[in-house]
């Protein structure tokens, strides 16, 4: 008896962990921790440079590791909790690239007279005399960088999680820093604080949904591993109620993060209130993480029960495309327009996710990359157009932009055309792969609806182009500030990538295609 216990005790050994496979996540989380130490120990004068250097180095190192790992066969590590496979690595690589751009945007200090888009003391009461003073003070805090690194680390873990508990932890790790970051805008503090609170409250709800779904699924399958859930679903003779309830709750939590309507209502407010570098990061990277994880959940855990949930996801995808396209028409703030565009794109992405075929995986991955780049670039441009009160985001302030700064308007047009899916931009190729996957997966009607709603959405992208090019600038309108090399590099690289991927997409499509099989 005791022998048996002992033997069992002996067999409980630490699970083997493939540290090399986890290296990208570990690097970024390590950078985050180091950033906290830097914040605590280094003198103020060098802190900023150290933080930027650290975050950049971390992202670049993670990207290199991802590229090295890409050649290896997929594996499951940490007792089956984490999968290091093609889709996970593709998402991590995309996140590392978007991370590099985001760091550069966060490091921009020339645009704002007071230095940086991030406020020094976010907790001050809005409107108090201290708060008014800090608007113009040159105090700069750098805690945004470790926060950013934590969020990025969580995002990298999210699509690699092979069981729901790890996925939940990753969800929280990526969310909490974002809630904080949303509240750090230097200008229009009230909006920013509102954004943070809104994001936090609704995000907490979404997390609760996720956990509740997790519990249901555990009750159904007796395991939290994705592969285990799939297995139970195929052999279990229990009723499907727990499975479907669990699925629904779980997916609600994830769709919330992916800005999918009808779980989108926070998006416009949060995008508008957050500092633009944070919005850029949020819009691009969170989407990659959320859809990377959705792909894994759908393909690994729920592919066999597709007949049960596909009709619902149809409806969700259509809702998201139409809500994004139609409500985007009525907006007058450029950040809100981009938010609704993000909601519409989430609907398109869902078409790829639920087509459940090889093209669907590689197409979604490719689309995430192209959308992330265009969205990040667009928000970077938004941060350039400013008046005395910070960024000038009202549409009317963008009138005639092309006359005063033709390059900025041209670059913005590239991003907008890419989002509208006009050929010779990356967005078109992205749409094409997704819709091809959809047609291949028997979603022809959905694809037609998607195309019609992208025609509707094109209207508000074009509206911005019309304003920039065909209208006369208002008297005393905002000016385009000349940014430092950081933002210049981001804008130039994202625009170049958007055009390059539109004309020569094959290399990246190959990478996405090779990434395909999920390991579970």
């Amino acid at each position, binding site marked *: 008896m005791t022998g048996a216990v002992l033997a069992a005790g002996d067999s409980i050994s630490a699970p083997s962990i493939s540290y090399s496979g986890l290296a990208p996540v570990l690097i970024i989380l390590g950078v985050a921790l180091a950033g906290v130490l830097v914040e605590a120990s280094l003198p103020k004068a060098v802190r900023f440079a150290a933080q930027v250097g650290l975050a950049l180095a971390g992202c670049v190192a993670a990207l290199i590791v991802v590229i090295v790992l890409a050649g290896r066969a997929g594996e499951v590590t940490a007792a089956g909790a984490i999968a290091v496979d093609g889709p996970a690595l593709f998402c991590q690589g995309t996140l590392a690239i978007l991370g590099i751009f985001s760091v550069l945007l966060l490091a921009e200090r020339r645009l704002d007279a007071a230095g940086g888009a991030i406020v020094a003391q976010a907790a001050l009461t809005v409107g108090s005399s201290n708060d008014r003073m800090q608007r113009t003070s040159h105090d700069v805090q750098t805690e945004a960088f470790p926060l950013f690194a934590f969020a990025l680390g969580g995002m990298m873990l999210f699509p690699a999680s092979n069981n729901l508990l790890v996925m939940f932890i990753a969800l929280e790790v990526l969310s909490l820093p974002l809630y904080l970051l949303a509240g750090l805008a230097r200008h229009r503090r009230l909006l920013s604080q509102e954004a943070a609170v809104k994001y936090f409250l609704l995000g907490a709800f979404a997390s609760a949904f996720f956990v509740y779904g997790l519990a249901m699924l555990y009750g159904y399958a007796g395991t939290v591993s994705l592969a285990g859930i799939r297995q139970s679903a195929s052999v279990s003779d229990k009723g499907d109620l727990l499975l479907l309830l669990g699925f629904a709750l779980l997916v609600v939590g994830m769709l919330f993060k992916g800005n999918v309507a009808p779980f989108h209502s926070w998006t416009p407010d949060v995008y508008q209130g957050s500092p633009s570098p944070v919005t850029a990061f949020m819009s691009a990277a969170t989407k990659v993480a959320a859809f990377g994880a959705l792909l894994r959940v759908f393909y690994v855990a729920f592919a066999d029960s597709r007949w049960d949930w596909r009709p619902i996801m149809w409806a969700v995808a259509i809702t998201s495309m139409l809500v994004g396209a139609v409500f985007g028409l009525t907006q007058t703030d450029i950040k809100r327009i981009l938010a609704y565009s993000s909601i519409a794109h989430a609907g398109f992405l869902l078409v790829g996710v639920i087509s459940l075929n090889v093209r669907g995986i590689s197409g979604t991955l490719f689309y995430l990359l192209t959308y992330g780049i265009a969205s990040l670039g667009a928000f970077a441009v938004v941060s350039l157009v400013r008046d005395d009160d910070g960024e000038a985001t009202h549409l009317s302030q963008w009138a005639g932009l092309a006359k005063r700064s033709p390059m900025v308007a041209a670059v913005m047009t590239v991003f907008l055309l890419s989002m509208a899916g006009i*050929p010779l931009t990356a967005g078109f*190729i992205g749409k094409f792969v997704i*819709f*091809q996957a959809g047609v291949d997966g028997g979603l022809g009607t959905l694809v037609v609806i998607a195309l019609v709603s992208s025609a509707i959405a094109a209207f508000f992208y074009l509206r911005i182009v019309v304003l920039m090019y065909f209208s006369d600038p208002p008297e005393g309108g905002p000016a385009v500030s000349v940014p430092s090399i950081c933002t210049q590099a981001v804008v130039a690289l994202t625009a170049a990538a958007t055009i390059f991927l539109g004309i020569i997409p*094959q290399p990246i499509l190959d990478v996405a295609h090779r990434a395909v099989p999920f390991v579970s």
Partner: protein
Amino acid sequence: MSGLWLIVLGAIPLVGAVVVGALPSGATMPGETAAVGDVVPAEAASAAVAPRTEGTAAAKLTALAFSLAAFVVAIIITARFDTHSSARFQAAKSWDWIRSFGVTFSVGVDGIALVLVLLATLLVPVVILASWNEETPGGRSPKAFFAWLLALEVMMIGVFVATDVFLFYVFFEAMLVPMYFLIGSYGGSQRRYAAMKFFLYSLLGGLVMLAAVITLYFASPAHTFEFVKLVGTVDPGYQKLLFFGFFLAFAIKAPLVPFHTWLPDAGAEAPTGGAVLLVGVLDKVGTFGFLRYCLPLFPEASRYFAPMVLILSVVGILYAAIVASVQRDMKRLVSYTSIAHFGFIAMGIFAFTTQGGSGAVLYMVNHGLSTGLVFIVVGMLIQRGRSRQISDYGGVATVTPYLAGVFFFAGLSALGLPGLSTFVSEFLTLVGTFTVHKTYAVLGTVGIIFAALYVLWMYQRLFHGPVKESVHKERLRSIKDMTALETVVVAPLVALILFFGFYPQPLLDIINPAVKITMHDVGKRDPAQHAGNGAKP
């Protein structure tokens, strides 16, 4: 080497657009403050234009040089074109482009594409010359105007020479962007609305077509986008749906009634150069698409839907002719005449006879020449009178006899006077249709009577009678007749309309084989002998 000519042809305007766009943009600032609305006092306008003319002279000359070079290359390709070859495409070349989608970068021309490429490359230098002294609204840079024109030429060439459906689609959609900027930046007072309407209409059609393009890949066992491999392999079960997807995009582009409402706005608001290319070449992409894609790829569906298209064509001919007669705006009137003409072209195509098909292709070319000429002379008149309203003019012939003469000639070519090239094509189209569908042909002929009505009535109101008692009277009395430059602009078009009016055979020789292949694809045999015999006026 032979396959590279088409690449060279596309590369020349592309390089040109980049070069023109990159030229230093002289002094563009002075114009901004002076020119606010569209009604600018002549002195202020000329003062605003003066400093920029020097800065943009280089841009104009560069653009002209590149467009002429492209035309020369197009002539070389025509000279090398073998009218007796049995190959479907000549000067063909193909590279892998996006392997994951089965997309190739394939180019080649058949007779139909070749004549349209010739038309496009001819019209671009003409348009550049016609826009030489045009004022740009709101102090916008004329340099960008010429760069967009060349960019548009790249797309036009691409759309005709592409022999891969995906590549065709890319050019088809990308073409909207330069045209959008030409209308939106350089058009009339309602340019924003017109540009938006144009873009959204075309985009909607294009996206429906995209759905069809994607499905096409799966509907054919060939799993490719290469046109040559797709012909005859499309699953008949899918054909009706796919035909509809392509047809909608082309019908909006052409435009066929009832998908036409964007054209009068876009045509009226576009600057002269943009309008010529929009109606002269871009809209031909729609009818070209019928012939190149709808008929050969979906023959069953084409036969099934032909009666519907024929009815739409006839309705279009009559409806647009009636609406054109009552227009008050010259450019809108010309746009409506084009809609009527597109009805003829569509009718010729869907009659499924070689005569009708060849007539339709010839019609496309001649319509490009003739409407191009009409838009140019209308533009010249508007530039002088500063109004698009017909009622603001009257008796202009007494002041500008040459302009009146050319205008009359252009009008006669638009109404298809025998001896002018448009008559040949109209005649062929109607004969080709008559042999199989007598009613439609007869109804279509009624449209010609209306054409005479609206053209001659417009001419009469503009140029004859007393000089109109209006605010414009003084200006009308003082306007100048055609300048030497303007004569150079219209001369090639006038000459070609006359030449092809008497001797259309060279064009028909190029067109006929391609049309025959197309009609063979669609599985129809001619009831009468083929075109070219008995078609000479």
